[in-house]
């Protein structure tokens, strides 16, 4: 009798040696990347989520543009508060929602792109050319993100002769391993090599996604930021002369839903399901229902840089109780965010040409833009410093609220204005760089903050 019960006990305990697969409980959303990403359709869906992140209001859909103006001279500082005031007063610290969002959205895009890259060799239903195109898109997305994050979170290219100043963490494969900040030199090196790869890998025509022209145009921007005028010129010139883009006669067309010939790389919206990928950009400038006021106003400095006869002044700025709301992005309810467009290529080509001594081309590009805005053409004889200054002014105006101004001022400072003040602060003071936010610091005990010293 007794032994039978003991047998029972032994039997029960014996069960623990058996297989435990009966314990598996798998939620609907659990899987593994090698199961979820196996073919072209799925690769496209995963990569779409990367593009999707670019459109986020914390990245290209808004904050990149806003912060680059806030920290420079494009926003009216009165009544700012919270994180925006911290940027405006060049005193960001590690706890800002803005910088957290910029890191998160930017790196979300690069991470999702890398996730696809890692799986490309295992995809079965694709030709080599298609695989290459995917690889090119991945490299385009991540270099675009890294180029912007390094400009916000590190001192600019040229801050030190060897660019050994800290940049950002970069990853070429998707993982949760700890990665330290690379030097600015290394970030730029990766960005350039990725973009050069992308130029070769991407087809010239790639549906709505990044193509080889987009990679070249972005490369032009990168070289220009580095004051590498020859390369910048070559790339921009290639895009302008050989690319399928056409200069719009209406300077606002590219901020609308479609129809522009200028968009080299845009973040697209569809009319479906209220999908408006770029609502954030416009949202800052629209009247808030609670008080009828927009969240930000343009500085009088930028508005006054447009002379009265400049058609862009009335088209892009509206008077709200004596202050100026930017209306550049309100053309259509749903619209494309023209992240890289032909006008910028002309600005790059023009100024690079001027820097390289090819003044006529600089004047031509400048006058194309001026005349379109209803301004008189400048003299063909313009050259040298005056031409460059005019091109820089045109760049400031044309690219207002397009993630340009702070980076551009720093570029100018590096090139020829070591004592440049950006709204009364030295261009290279610690506060002109965004502080690394806690969501990047706390995953890595070795991660270094930027100096927390403001600009006083």
């Amino acid at each position, binding site marked *: 009798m007794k032994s039978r019960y003991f047998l029972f006990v032994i039997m029960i305990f014996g069960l623990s040696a058996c297989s435990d697969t009966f314990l598996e409980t798998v939620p609907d959303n659990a899987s593994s990347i090698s199961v979820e990403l196996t073919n072209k359709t799925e690769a496209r869906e995963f990569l779409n989520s990367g593009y999707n992140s670019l459109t986020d209001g914390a990245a290209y859909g808004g904050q990149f543009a806003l912060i680059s103006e806030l920290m420079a001279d494009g926003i009216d500082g009165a009544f700012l508060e919270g994180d925006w005031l911290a940027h405006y*007063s060049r005193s960001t610290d590690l706890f800002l929602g803005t910088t957290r969002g910029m890191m998160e959205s930017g790196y979300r895009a690069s991470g999702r792109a890398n996730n696809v890259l890692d799986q490309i060799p295992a995809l079965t239903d694709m030709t080599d050319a298609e695989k290459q195109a995917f690889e090119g898109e991945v490299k385009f997305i991540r270099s675009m993100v890294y180029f912007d994050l390094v400009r916000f979170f590190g001192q600019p290219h040229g801050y030190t002769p060897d660019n050994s100043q800290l940049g950002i963490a970069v990853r070429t494969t998707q993982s*949760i391993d700890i990665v330290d900040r690379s030097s600015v030199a290394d970030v730029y090196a990766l960005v350039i090599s990725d973009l050069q790869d992308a130029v070769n890998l991407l087809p010239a025509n790639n549906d709505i996604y990044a193509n080889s022209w987009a990679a070249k145009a972005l490369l032009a921007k990168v070289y220009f930021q580095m004051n590498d005028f020859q390369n910048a010129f070559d790339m921009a010139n290639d895009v302008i002369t050989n690319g399928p883009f056409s200069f719009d006669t209406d300077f606002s067309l590219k901020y609308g839903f479609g129809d522009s010939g200028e968009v080299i790389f845009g973040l697209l919206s569809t009319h479906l399901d209220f999908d408006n*990928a770029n609502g954030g950009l416009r949202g800052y400038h629209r009247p808030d229902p609670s008080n009828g006021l927009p969240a930000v106003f343009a500085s009088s400095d930028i508005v006054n840089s447009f002379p009265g006869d400049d058609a862009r002044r009335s088209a892009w700025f509206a008077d709200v109780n004596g202050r100026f709301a930017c209306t550049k992005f309100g053309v259509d309810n749903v619209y494309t965010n023209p992240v890289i467009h032909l006008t910028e290529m002309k600005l790059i080509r023009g100024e690079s040409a001027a820097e390289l001594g090819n003044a006529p081309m600089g004047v031509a590009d400048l006058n194309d833009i001026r005349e379109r805005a209803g301004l008189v053409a400048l003299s063909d004889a313009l050259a040298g410093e005056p031409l460059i200054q005019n091109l820089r002014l045109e760049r400031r105006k044309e690219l207002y609220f397009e993630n340009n101004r702070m980076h551009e001022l720093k570029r100018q400072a590096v090139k020829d204005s070591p004592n440049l003040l950006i709204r009364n602060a030295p261009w290279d003071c610690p506060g002109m760089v965004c502080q690394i936010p806690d969501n990047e610091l706390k995953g890595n005990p070795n991660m270094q903050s930027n100096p927390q010293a403001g600009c006083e």
Partner: protein
Amino acid sequence: MKSLNYILTMLLVPVLCSGLMAQGAIQGLVLDENNEPVIGGNLVIEGTSNGTVTEFDGTYIIENVSPGNVSVTVSYVGYESLTKSVSVPESGTATLDFKIGVDTETLEEVVVVGYTTQRRRELVGNVTKIQNSELNDNVGTTFETALQGKAPGLQIVQGSGTAGSHSIVRIRGTASISSGGDPLYVIDGIPIVQEENYLFGERGGQNNNPLSSLNPSDIESVEILKDASAAAIYGSKGANGVIIITTKRGRTGKPTFNYTTKMGITRPTNILKPVSKDEWLQIRQEAHENSGGVGRVPLPLGLSYDDIANIETDWVDAVIRTGFDQEHNLSVRAGNKWLAAYLGVTYSKNESYLIGNDFERRSARANLDFTPMDKLKITVSSSIARGLRNKTPQAWSGGLGLAQSNALPFYPITRNEFPEESPFYEPFGYFNQYQNPVAQIAYTDLETREIRYLNNIQISYVPTDRLVFTLQGNYDFTDIGDYSFEQQEWTTTVPISKAWLFKSKNRSAFLTGQYDVPMAENHSVKVLAGTEYQQYDRESLYAEYSDKFGQIYSNSTYRDRVSELDYFYNGGYKFFSLFGRVNYSYKDKFYAQVVFRRDASSKFGAENRWGNFPSVGLGYIVSEEDFWPENFPVNYLKLKGSWGLTGNSNIPDDAIFATFAFNNNPDNIDYGNYYNGNTQHQIKEENPFIKWETVSTIDVGIEVGMFDDRITSDLTFYNKLTQDAILGEFVSASAGYDNSVFFRNIGKIRNRGVEFEITSRNFVGKFSWTTDLNIGVNRNKVLDVGNATPDALDGGFGDTRVIEGQPIGVNYIVEFSHVDPATGAPVYLDADGNETFEYNPTDNRVVAGSIQPDFTGGLKNTFRYKNIGLDFLFYFVKGGTIYDDAAKRQLGVIADDWTYMPYIFDRWREPGDLATFPKYVESMNEWGGSGNIWQNNHTLWLYDASFIRLRNITLSYSIKPKEGMVFKNVRLYVQGINLLTFTKYPGWDPEIARDRSGEQARNIGGTNVTYLTPPQAKSFIFGASFDF
């Protein structure tokens, strides 16, 4: 209701119609220590379920007794059980009288210890038993609040005064960081799932409370298992302690009915009104001028001074009220030889002090014990509860939170309060509705409806006297809907109805065998072995309708539409377990116990699927030895000690998986849809290594009885070491996984402390006075957090952190030194302790305090004089710090979108002033920091968290029944809950459980960090209990 009556009748018929076989009988008298008759005392013949209850004069008669020697046990609530033997003649009547004494934690008391019971004297572990009679002072409707102050080492922080909100319960400190720190609750053998706290996030500023569906008056007793030897039988779920809830069961004898009722009113413990209109304007004007402004400061929203000339709103008054609480229980207990039943129905409605917030519960319970034959017993325990919670926004989400933040004293509630010539005047409509808590309550509706069934059936088979097999099957089903409705006026477009629906099935079964091994005299060995399986599944659904009028929940058309949608299977988990316990005793004075449990779970990674949890314990009643002197003042002395491993598996059940989001997943709030929304992405990576946390506990205790047990005392030392503590390692933004965390078993946490409990019966007799004191001292220290930086493990907002060498939940903020008397500017300390005007959180934060108290405890005094009773309980917490996360806005930079606290006035005004607060200024730059006024976290907002609270005071009167009265026992009482609080904290209430969702946030900053958190409730209650 009709069907319920039918069921009641059907169940009672067999009970009432039995007892016809004539055999022997026993009769007698039961008296208490004052020789007063005990009425309603319960008598049972040992080994049977035959018994009865005493009459009005204390007499009883048990019929149908088999002739021979039988033992009869008498028990009565609050009294020691007593067993006596008598010889019953055939067809005759034996006489057996009893005199029973007041229960003082008797050695023979039966204690539920998990899968079985033990006598208290046999315990080698640390178990506190709390009887139903001591559970009468719950706050609102949830039972766990009634445990506060009643057991040493049990820290309960009530979940604010909102109806049906959830408490934070910690046994012997916080032993986990990223995994759940709450104890395991076991209701009649059913392990309850605690993750459901966070079902709906913190919507409305309130967590869900899965325990709120339990009716406190159905509870017979609560056992709290604290040490490893007690909790190891629950293996990988036992590390945070176990709270075992046993519901009432039937008793043999005539049916006894009981009706209890409570009615009362509820107010906040403390009302703290922001500054008046004049004060607000004065403060604002002063800041304006200090910051270089000239003229009268412009009013927000474009208001003019004329507009507001005659307006002053008391926003706090506008959102609070005196709530009315009521509770009605009707139950019956009855039983005979074959069937014993407890049946109870309850209705309760608890209105909180927040306008629009209440919790209504209807529940019914049937506990049936069948004894079809001597060797077989079948019990069924079944309950159904329906809860309806009307929620209002509170804390950060509005309501009372808005009344102390964005709702300014010169904003009117409605626009018609403006003078007619004002541009803001309108005959109808609310003013500034999104910051207007009255408009918010009027235009939005939040409601939670829940149904919960708790069912089990247990079959016990006793093939021989020494052997018992028990098989129990459990089914715990939850169906909760959280609904919101926003009227058109609120959305400004169309009304929006939303529904978050959730269902879970928690199924489990266990089989045990208990064997009393035949041994030589003086030796006893009992063996228990068992196996258990648990499967928990949950699924959810989100639906939103923006095109129609009417709430989803009140309109069957929408309900039908919702029900056609597919639920999303969120997963769940399974546990398979094997366990055993061996108890040895020698001469009933020396005890040894070995427990072993082996758990496997789907929650654990493939590499770590099985965990082993052993424990050993020893107990020795020294005073039973022959050498123990007679009449020694210490009449009882027991030493005990234990060691064991328990586990904590309270980790998300999807932690092991890589998870993915699809654009068609309604739970995935993504950012627009890129080209028609065909997107997928990975949320996190797979984790095959994650496993339970292992807690190793050493426990040494001494139990003493003195002066013939007039004074009894327990003293316990423990050392609880969490190894493999799960840390949610933050995944850097650069990895692209959106602030996700990756769980690793790499932390180490130590809790060690002392628990002391003493009961002194100062007076006995007609006037009796008993004092109970318990204190739990706990020292919490994080020994290892791997490579985690201070910010990597945070408690959400409020800057509480986990830092190696410190307690869990330290305030890691900049040290505020003083206000500079010369300039009125704040002076901080840098990391080296030097004074600085710069507010620099990047470099200068230090550990400035901790949410962990030094000790907590309760002091209870009970007085009885004849029929009158008075008892009161003080609950106290010493040590720890409160961080007021809203103070930076209520007391910091003077901005025009917040109101200020009434204690803001001690500020710097002119050179030489020694002030608490700096000069009023308008910008954070003038505080030395970045422009962001939300980043103003430092020790100026840190307060001592100590408090003493008059937790309960009850005055009761019992009417002794007389022959001919309808009622056998009547007890009337008045009760005050949380009436008095003594604290140095100037805010609303020092007892704070913040509305944080997520285990880590609750462990690190769930208590003692407030952001507009509503205060606790105080109530005045009239109660009555009738037996008939």
